[in-house]
């Protein structure tokens, strides 16, 4: 006779809480040396709540099912030569950027949660971090697998991991996670689980993935939504972490607020890459970056911070400085003008796309950005496709080139600087400067790609050697404009238009 099925709460207690043990010959403090390191005060780990109450046995069961569904779609995608069904070859460049910029962060998240989970004295938090760590490993593996199919047909996919550690614009996402992983365990959770996953990653995985579907890329939307099905659990962990820390001790409130301010700003700057992908790199567009920000940050984040107000938590500082009207335009322009040094192709938006941008950004696009593209078009028509000769100056904190403008003046580039121990450091914004001031000893060590090039640490002597020998780009194939690229030529041949 079958035993009565345990209810969820009892099962969770037995298979999670009861796995903990007392330390008989070692001091507890020595077993969890980082737990007090950041000044966070935990009085009672048993107050930790996991609302999903997922246990390891159920975890394996559901994850296996997700994988089976996912790989069935990958197989169908490959068997049907579905790379030919995407809207146009420009779209593939968003996926190149995804593989080099985002997928390696999944691996960093795996490492981060494995390390961080080990540092907590509470078993509920340890198990949640362990599951998330395995999830993140699954995410990077499925993404590599999905995109390996594109690697057979398009340039720029060959050396994503090598590039992630070296290429100038990829230091933006890389340094974000390096910063989080080198923080203490509680800051890591506030940074990644709460500020990034709960507050911001919806912007990456939801509208962008819906956009992938809209551009005929079933492989990407499927890995995206499969990863996102774990994300709902990660987001919930993020919210529980915050509530737990705030309920444990009132002294935790200012620390948590400081981390929210820092990581919100770092995340918002980082996501300008996604804004650019949505506004410029998707041929079929689902919604603008500004609209996505409205739904997923202003609306959802507004509700969240209203809920957290009872703990004395307020909206992140600098929220008014996020320039959703401008960031995607300024970033794509920078990529376009540095298109000889990017591992993906760039282009001028078509006339229809420019009309769409005017409609979505009525206050700014025609006034500030259309004239630039008209000039670029004219130069291109004269056989003078514009590429800048200069290497960009980078922000010491977020590592984004100094390309954003002042909040109150979109014609003026925003520069901040500070002197620390006789050296001058540069920043893109008040937020990034203030983050540096909190921990200057950390950020003076930033590995800034442009500085490294000038110091001779990236090969050379010329930019060409840096790009081809140090970054591993196939020049003439991976970089430059989509017009005339081998990607475009092959596509036209496949489609019978050449």
């Amino acid at each position, binding site marked *: 006779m079958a035993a009565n099925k345990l209810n969820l709460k009892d099962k969770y207690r037995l298979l999670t809480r009861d796995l903990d043990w007392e330390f008989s010959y070692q001091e507890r403090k020595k077993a969890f040396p980082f737990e007090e390191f950041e000044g966070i005060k935990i009085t009672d780990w048993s107050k930790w709540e996991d*609302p*999903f109450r997922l246990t390891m046995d159920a975890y394996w069961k*559901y994850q296996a099912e997700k994988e089976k569904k996912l790989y069935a779609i990958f197989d169908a995608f490959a068997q049907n030569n579905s790379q030919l069904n995407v809207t146009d070859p420009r779209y593939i460049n968003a996926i190149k950027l995804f593989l080099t910029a985002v997928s390696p962060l999944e691996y960093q998240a795996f490492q981060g949660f494995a390390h961080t989970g080990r540092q907590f004295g509470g078993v509920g938090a340890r198990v949640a971090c362990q599951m998330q760590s395995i999830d993140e490993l699954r995410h990077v593996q499925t993404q590599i697998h999905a995109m390996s199919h594109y690697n057979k047909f398009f340039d720029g996919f060959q050396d994503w991991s090598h590039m992630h550690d070296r290429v100038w614009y990829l230091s933006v996402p890389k340094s974000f996670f390096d910063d989080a992983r080198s923080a203490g365990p509680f800051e890591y959770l506030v940074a990644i689980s709460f500020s990034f996953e709960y507050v911001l990653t*919806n912007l990456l995985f*939801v509208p962008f993935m819906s956009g992938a579907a809209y551009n005929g890329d079933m492989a990407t939307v499927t890995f995206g939504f499969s990863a*996102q*099905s774990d994300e709902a659990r990660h987001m*919930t962990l993020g919210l529980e972490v915050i509530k737990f820390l705030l309920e444990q001790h009132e002294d935790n409130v200012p620390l948590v607020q400081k981390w929210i301010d820092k990581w919100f700003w770092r995340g918002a700057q980082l996501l300008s890459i996604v804004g650019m992908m949505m506004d410029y790199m998707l041929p079929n567009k689902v919604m603008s970056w500004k609209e996505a920000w409205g739904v997923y940050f202003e609306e*959802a984040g507004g509700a*969240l911070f209203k809920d957290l107000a009872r703990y004395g938590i307020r909206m992140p500082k600098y929220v008014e400085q996020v320039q959703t009207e401008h960031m995607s335009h300024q970033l794509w322009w920078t990529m376009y003008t540095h298109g000889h040094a990017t591992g993906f192709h760039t282009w001028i938006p078509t006339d229809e796309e420019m009309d769409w941008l005017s409609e979505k950004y009525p206050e700014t696009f025609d006034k500030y950005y259309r004239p630039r593209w008209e000039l670029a078009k004219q130069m291109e028509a004269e056989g003078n496709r514009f590429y800048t000769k200069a290497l960009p100056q980078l922000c010491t904190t977020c590592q984004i080139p100094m390309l954003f403008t002042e909040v109150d003046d979109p014609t003026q580039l925003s520069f901040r600087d500070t002197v620390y121990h006789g050296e001058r450091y540069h920043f893109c914004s008040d937020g990034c400067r203030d983050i540096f001031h909190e921990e200057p000893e950390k950020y003076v060590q930033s590995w800034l790609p442009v500085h490294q090039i000038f110091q001779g640490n990236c090969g050379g002597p010329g930019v060409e050697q840096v790009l081809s020998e140090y970054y591993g780009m196939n020049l003439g194939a991976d970089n430059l404009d989509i017009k005339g690229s081998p990607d475009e030529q092959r596509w036209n041949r496949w489609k019978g238009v050449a």
Partner: protein
Amino acid sequence: MSKVYLALQDNDISRYIVEAIEEDNPGVTIIHNPAMIRIENEGTLVVNRETVEEKLGRDWDVQELHLNLITLGGNVDEDDERLSLSWNA
């Protein structure tokens, strides 16, 4: 009252889950986007095992929701009978 929300992959199972949600949460908003369905409601939202089972015509474990879930917003509470989302403010 703030809105809580849930997004599901647009597939065969989700269609029945959405039907169940509509039945148990009068006034709920359903938004169709490419490949996904977004469900929003003022203040609270509940997915009941019993209603989903009725719609699907088979047993359904609340944790199966994870197979089709894309994202959510709100404080989560889950047990054997239901998953609920809510905001306190």
